[in-house]
């Protein structure tokens, strides 16, 4: 049993699929790629039980068969080969794998394909179709805001809320929250699922530009298909916090400001803030904003005045500059508004004009400032 394939073509696929191979897996077989050949199509699969990645590739094969091949050795071998056809042959009984290149032969031992975990069942799914660039946008806007707290498993994922004609992405770590919705989606029903962030970051890096992506989901998994690649992510089975309830609706102190000016000012000031807590203070007055930071341990301090429009109450409000910088960094529109109520309540960041078919809202909790 053998097949022939171009080394570079294979490498491209392997690199994508390798994302789901964990370095220290629970089962030894998870260190392998599963190769399956059917009618001159090679299907490569890897899984860490939470994320499964599948990619397809046309090859020239002499029969239909499958085998599990140790991922790291194979990937390293293919990586160091130049663009040239290679032949991979497999011994039917021992699952020994031989790679033949123009330079020589490389042998490694494969594993029984039957040992590889089965694919999750794809039944009772709902499907929606979304543009890959929109999906990538949704992920860029939300992934950074997810939590790392394993005790609150729901917040380690991104909430996909499908609501008939739109999809809402929500992420929060209890200190910041992002809600990003995209319209123009066709769906027959409304439902919401929590997708783990690890799989999503892998997906984000592999998404092509402007292609159609199908999201099919049931109670347990989401199946994401585009071109010749599929991602299957196991959903987080937990209750997502009621995020709508915590988004304030009556924040009357509105600051209008240019995003890039604000961002670069914050970046400078943050250098002078405490390295662990990154706290900065916004001092708001009539059409004036002063940003300041102090690091008592090193007697470093800095402050800047930047131009803005502000007609609300005078107030001093403290924020973690790192959060603000992250949020402003992913925003695209230049004109933004920060809506605040008082120094202990959430501030909301929104673009002055929403992009068509998009709706973006970011929320940040202040730090408590005594005295």
């Amino acid at each position, binding site marked *: 049993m053998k097949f022939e394939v171009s080394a570079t073509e294979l490498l491209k696929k392997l690199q994508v699929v390798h994302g789901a191979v964990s370095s220290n897996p629970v089962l030894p077989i998870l260190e392998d790629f599963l190769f399956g050949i059917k009618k001159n199509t090679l299907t490569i699969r890897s899984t860490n039980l939470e994320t499964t990645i599948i990619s397809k590739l046309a090859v020239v094969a002499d029969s239909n068969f499958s085998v599990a091949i140790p991922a790291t050795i194979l990937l390293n071998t293919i990586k160091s080969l130049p663009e040239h056809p290679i032949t991979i042959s497999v011994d039917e009984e021992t699952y020994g794998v031989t790679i033949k290149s123009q330079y020589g032969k490389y042998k490694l031992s494969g594993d029984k394909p039957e040992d590889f975990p089965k694919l999750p069942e794809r039944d009772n799914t709902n499907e929606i179709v979304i543009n890959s660039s929109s999906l990538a946008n949704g992920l860029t806007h939300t992934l950074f805001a997810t939590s790392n707290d394993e005790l609150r498993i729901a917040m380690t994922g991104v909430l996909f809320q499908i609501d008939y004609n739109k999809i809402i992405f929500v992420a929060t770590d209890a200190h910041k929250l992002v809600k990003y919705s995209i319209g123009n989606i066709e769906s027959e029903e409304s439902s919401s699922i929590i997708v783990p962030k690890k799989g999503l970051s892998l997906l984000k890096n592999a998404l092509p530009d402007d292609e159609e992506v199908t999201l099919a989901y049931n109670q347990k998994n989401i199946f994401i298909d585009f071109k010749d690649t599929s991602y299957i992510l196991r959903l987080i089975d937990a209750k997502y916090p009621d995020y709508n309830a915590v988004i304030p609706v009556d924040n009357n102190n509105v600051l209008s400001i240019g995003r890039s000016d604000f961002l670069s000012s914050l970046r400078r000031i943050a250098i002078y803030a405490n390295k662990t807590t990154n706290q900065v203070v916004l001092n708001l007055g009539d059409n004036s904003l002063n940003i300041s930071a102090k690091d008592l341990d090193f007697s470093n301090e800095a402050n800047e005045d930047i131009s803005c429009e502000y007609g609300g109450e005078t107030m001093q409000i403290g924020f973690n500059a790192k959060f603000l910088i992250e949020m402003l960094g992913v925003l695209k529109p230049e004109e933004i508004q920060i809506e605040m109520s008082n120094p*202990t309540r959430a501030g909301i960041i929104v673009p002055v004009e929403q992009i068509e078919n998009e709706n973006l809202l970011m929320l940040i909790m202040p*730090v*408590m400032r*005594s005295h």
Partner: protein
Amino acid sequence: MVVYNPQIYRKYRLYLSNYSSIFTIYILYDRAVLHLDLDSFFVSVECLKNSDFLGKPLLIGGTSARGVVASCSYEARRFGIHSAMPMKMALRLCPDALVIRGDMDSYSKYSGLVTDIIAEEAPKYEKSSIDEFYLDLSGMDKYFGCFKWSKELRQKVIKESGLPISFGLSVNKLVSKIGTGESKPNGEHQVQRGTEKQFLFPLSVKKIPGIGKVTYKKLSFMGVRKIETLSNIPIRLLEREFGKHGKILWEKSHGIDESPVVPYHEQKSMSKERTFKEDTLDLNHMKNMLIKMVDDLAFDLREDQKLTSTVTVKIRYADFNTYTKQRRIPYTSNDQLLIKHILEIFEKVYDRRQLIRLIGVKFSGLVSGSYQISLFDDTEKEIRLMEQRDWIKRRFGQDKIMRASSLKTKR
């Protein structure tokens, strides 16, 4: 035998140490370090407030059956009483001694007073405890005369605060401190450059700061009583017996100490502990006590604009077995959260159903900053409440508002 030659040693250190390091600078010229220590500080303050106490054996410390002596007058020391001795034992040695509980607030006030006087005069000072100061007088000898200047400073402190104070003046912190110890009470002592060894060698190794009960015992077993004997032990042997500490011991015995006078010490942790009047099994009482301690410490955290990332619970059973358990948490100064963690840790560490003698709480891993409010855990009401409570405590005193559960913990 290792022969100690200061010239070679210094060159060696100079060679070893990074040129930018603070130590290098000191080696380049002669240092002069003054150590000031207020004599039996708490007692002196009490005498100042009430002259009836003068000349009487006075003990300050816990008055309950298991209290310890925090400070005692020189009259009481004559009976063999020393600080950290159980009060019961002290009273057995001197049944007529007067015992008072002490008033930490007024001690800090007087300590602050002395600090102000020193700060006004000294070029660079370090307050190493409530009643001890180090001053760096390097380079002042030529113009002022270090010893003369120190004498004047001491007289000024005595005149302006009314408290007796002693000092030791020498080339580094170590020798100065030992010098102060030798000059007490109410004295002054200078150890001239080059005479450090003459001064140190006849003294007991116990006099070296950093040699506690355990090290002293071990040294005694080795037959080492005098600093001179210690100085003759090869450094290798000390390192074998005491590990890293061995080298420091050897240096100390030769009067070598290059630690600089550091004007400001960053606080690394804050803690509270409490010994019960009687060993107890009363879980509710212990929990209330923990809550009270966390409440007080969390208030201090917020006042200092600090956050903690490590919390520790300590318990001591009646048999003196002591256990601690700590937990890393996200940076916080919120008492609600801290109480939750502390009680959870307490449940874990208290696993023997035995009488408890002492419980304590410690916050460490401190950084400057304010509490990051959480979107889901904190309600606006709770944050407001915390702010208002802090305001009342600041304005009217820490004990003016507290949780109902803390009421019962009051004595």
